[in-house]
């Protein structure tokens, strides 16, 4: 764990089953294809909306809830409430990340006419990470006060 209170736990990957990875892959691939098809049929203005469609959000929420519930039940505790709270916290993080996602889209929208896409896309990704992290950190500080 570092100063920001963030840690990495690779054992979480071992708890994820193969079909849970497959579900994310299929949903991710499917929404990428759908965004392309919708853009071709109704124009980029409609297709663009789906670049921020919460395609794997229901699957991710369900998995977080399930994993946390199973962990608590293995420890002999009631896991329903804990599972739901973990999923709610994950969704709160996703809400903060989506502010970063809007910042990503804004940087791409303003940056693409000005400079090379090979520069704009990495910069926009960095802006997403930075904006999301700052909001997450500010919320954490506010909760501590």
């Amino acid at each position, binding site marked *: 764990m570092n100063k920001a209170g963030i840690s990495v736990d690779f054992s979480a990957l071992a708890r994820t089953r193969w079909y849970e990875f497959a579900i994310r892959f299929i949903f991710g691939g499917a*929404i990428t*294809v759908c965004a392309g098809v919708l853009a071709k049929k109704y124009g980029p203005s409609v297709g663009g*909306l789906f670049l*921020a469609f919460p395609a794997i959000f229901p699957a991710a929420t369900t998995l977080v809830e399930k994993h946390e519930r199973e962990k608590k039940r293995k420890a002999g505790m009631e896991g329903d409430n804990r599972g739901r709270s973990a999923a709610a916290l994950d969704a709160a993080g996703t809400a903060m990340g*989506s502010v970063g*996602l809007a910042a990503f889209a804004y940087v791409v929208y303003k940056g693409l006419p000005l400079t090379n896409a090979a520069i704009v896309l990495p910069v926009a990704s960095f802006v997403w990470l930075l904006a999301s992290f700052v909001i997450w950190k500010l919320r954490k500080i506010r909760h501590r006060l």
Partner: protein
Amino acid sequence: MQFVIRFLVGGTMVLIFAALGDVLKPKSFAGLFGAAPSVALATLTLTIFADGVNYADSEARSMIAGAIGFLACAFLSCQLMMRWRVRGAYAALAAIVAWFAVSFGIWAKALK
């Protein structure tokens, strides 16, 4: 063939960001990766090659509305689980309705 490439690139990008979210703690921080620009990076990169910068730029403009819809969706889902103890799957599916309402609402008012 283009659809196959889109499917593979989009699926892989989503998988990478989702795996990142799995290994990170605390949960609220890991959740940030639930709104990673995975689909957007895959789509925009392929769109720039296939249809040019102007087309991708129009998509990015609308994506701002989609991201605000995503904020509404995740916030509503969090509230449903936290305050009303609704199951995760039902809360997330109900919140998808909020995504459509907010995203298309902003699109119809400001971007159409």
